[in-house]
């Protein structure tokens, strides 16, 4: 089939997700990306594969979000000197993804930003871990890196370097602020500190056990990752998880969303000097996590979603506990929302702070709740719903202002909507099996795709396996990749003391993007 009137022949991929794949040459890829941009679509992910052992060269995959779902264009590349055209002129957000692809695989964007991204100076520049013939158990001595930050010069301009170790209980990353007085002229991020070689590690795992690693790419989104991984594994093996399992997966995903939104709303109050908000919301979050622990055996619901189904069930009594807790939490959240709304000091800090303009958000392919607070109306649960979301009528939440206040408002409204969804899931949970066995793929597989709207944004897992069910390639993509660059813009012109508040209103994953 054709998509966006382009001269490429797309095929619908097997599985639950609305994903379409096509192979293209350079001109076809560039034309398709431009068509996506013009039609109001966005870049979702970009990754490479080494297919030399299968008699081919390298492959670059570009996933775009369009109305119909996900369109993946694959560009075959030669085994020697693999290069492809720089896509960052069409999608600026491709910059870091392209640099990461080079660091891991040694395939280069022609004319793109030559600086490394995931590689610091701690392994050689010609060591490409994701090449199939690369021995990733090699060790190298740690070295200091001289990274080429962009310098801002002029009267009174100076720099504040922050990180990798930050001043709070936060993941490591480096922020380089160029400021005049208190005003931020420019922020440049340098990440990759928590790169753990996850994608190489997948090559030592089987389809049946990779879900545990996927669930640890970004711990606060463990449910979203595990579900996306299982969608991909089930697509490759033509396994259909039972209906009850799908509904329970949605229950876990919405519970994860509520837990994270509760925590964020507390910290957003705290970063604007209302510590009362932190105590109250963290109390609610603790109540929430304790019930997850009691009913599902894990406070974050890690490993609750497994290939073929779910690892734990829900009793009638458990369902009643969940529903009554939703009522209790909703009552308290509405009281606290009223307090936040009426608090002049808090609103003074929230309103107009850290503004991400909707047009810029579109240009940068910003997704997730940060995107929705800047008019980017993308939510898989409403646009490309998989079961059970196709029966839940999820209401998408969007705001236009793009400031901290808008991101707070999106969290409040999504939280209330998730509580509604949870009560509905519990009341309509279908009976039946909770798990079916995962078949072996039987042949060398193509690509299986999982795509889930996590609390932060859409998580993508692209998976391939050999006939015995060993993982050949697993790419996990965190929504943070596409939202971090927007933070560099949202902080411009704000004062340094507002950075923690703005950063918290984004609350992005370091581990997810470093992986």
């Amino acid at each position, binding site marked *: 089939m054709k998509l966006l009137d382009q001269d490429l022949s797309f095929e619908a991929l097997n599985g639950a997700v609305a994903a379409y794949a096509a192979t293209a040459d350079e001109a076809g890829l560039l034309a398709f990306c431009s068509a996506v941009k013009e039609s109001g679509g966005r870049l979702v992910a970009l990754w490479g594969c080494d297919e030399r052992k299968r008699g081919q060269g390298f492959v670059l995959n570009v996933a775009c979000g369009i109305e119909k779902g996900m369109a993946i264009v694959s560009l075959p590349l030669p085994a020697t000197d693999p290069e492809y055209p720089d896509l960052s002129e069409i999608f600026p957000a491709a910059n870091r993804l392209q640099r990461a692809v080079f660091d891991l695989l040694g395939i280069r964007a022609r004319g793109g930003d030559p600086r490394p991204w995931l590689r*610091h100076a*701690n*392994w050689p520049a010609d*060591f490409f*871990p994701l090449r199939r013939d690369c021995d*990733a*158990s*090699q*060790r*190298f001595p*740690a070295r*200091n890196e001289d990274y080429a930050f962009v310098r801002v010069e002029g009267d009174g301009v100076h720099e504040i370097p922050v990180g*990798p*170790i930050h*001043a*709070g*209980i*936060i*993941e*490591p990353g480096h922020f380089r602020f160029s400021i005049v007085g208190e005003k931020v002229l420019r922020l440049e991020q340098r990440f*990759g*500190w*928590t*790169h*753990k*070689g*996850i994608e*190489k*590690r997948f090559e030592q795992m089987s389809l049946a056990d990779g879900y*545990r*690693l996927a669930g*640890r*790419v*970004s*711990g*606060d989104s*463990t449910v979203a990752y595990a579900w996306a991984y299982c969608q991909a594994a089930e697509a490759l093996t033509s396994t259909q998880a039972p209906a009850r399992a799908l509904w329970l997966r949605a229950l876990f995903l919405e519970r994860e969303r509520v837990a994270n939104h509760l*925590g964020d709303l507390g910290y957003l109050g705290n970063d604007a000097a209302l510590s*009362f908000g*932190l*105590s*109250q919301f*963290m*109390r609610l*979050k*603790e109540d929430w*996590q304790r019930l997850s*622990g009691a009913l599902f055996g894990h*406070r*974050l619901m*890690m490993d609750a979603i497994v290939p073929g189904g779910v690892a734990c069930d829900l009793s009638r009594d458990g369902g009643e506990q969940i529903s009554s807790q939703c009522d209790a939490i909703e009552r308290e959240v509405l*009281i*606290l929302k*009223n*307090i936040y709304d*009426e608090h002049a000091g808090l609103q003074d800090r929230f309103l107009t702070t850290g503004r991400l303009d909707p047009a810029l958000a579109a240009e940068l392919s910003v997704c997730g709740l940060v995107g929705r607070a800047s008019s980017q109306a993308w939510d898989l649960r409403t646009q490309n719903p998989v079961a059970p979301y196709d029966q839940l009528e999820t209401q998408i939440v969007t705001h236009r202002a793009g400031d901290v206040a808008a991101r707070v408002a999106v969290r409040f409204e999504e939280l209330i909507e998730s509580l509604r969804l949870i009560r509905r899931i519990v009341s309509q949970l279908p009976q039946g099996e909770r798990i079916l066995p995962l078949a072996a793929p039987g042949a060398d597989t193509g690509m299986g795709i999982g795509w889930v709207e996590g609390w932060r944004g859409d998580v993508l897992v692209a998976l391939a396996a050999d006939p015995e069910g060993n993982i050949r390639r697993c790419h996990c993509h965190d929504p943070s990749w596409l939202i971090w660059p927007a933070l560099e813009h949202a902080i411009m012109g704000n004062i340094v003391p507002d950075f923690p508040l703005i950063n918290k209103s984004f609350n992005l*994953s*370091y*581990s997810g993007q*470093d992986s």
Partner: protein
Amino acid sequence: MYPIFKQILKTGIKSEVPPQPDQALRVTAARLEDAMLKTLGRALVIRHIDAGSCNGCEVEIHALSNPYYNLEGLGIRFAASPKHADLLLVTGPVAKNMETALKRAYECTPAPKLVVAVGDCGISGGIFGESYASCGRVANVIPVDVIVPGCPPTPEALLTGILTAISAR
């Protein structure tokens, strides 16, 4: 202000009794003398360092400050600099890219430089293991006093580990 006071009064005091130390979590002999512990009580300053975690441990470390565990109520607080810390709470397998930063933070920490390695990854490298990108367990990079198992450890387990580090045998 009235709605805030009303909510505080309605919520009441949620703090729970903290767990007891568990000497089985020690990997080295206790290094604090009884006399020192008596003088300092349990006043303790912690510097948290994420050396490469998936951020699951961080979710639970944050929970220590909620009203149920009320860490500050025990005289324990988090500091922004290792120079102000008595104890480093280290999570993750140590990512290769964090090896130097972790060593530097350890060097900056004044004696007694207590170190608690958090989570299955901090103890063994966990599911990530050792590779070009991961140095594995925390003890491969800096000396460790106490370990807290779990993926991630519950807040109660974290509290047990921290209190063990500042207990005498």
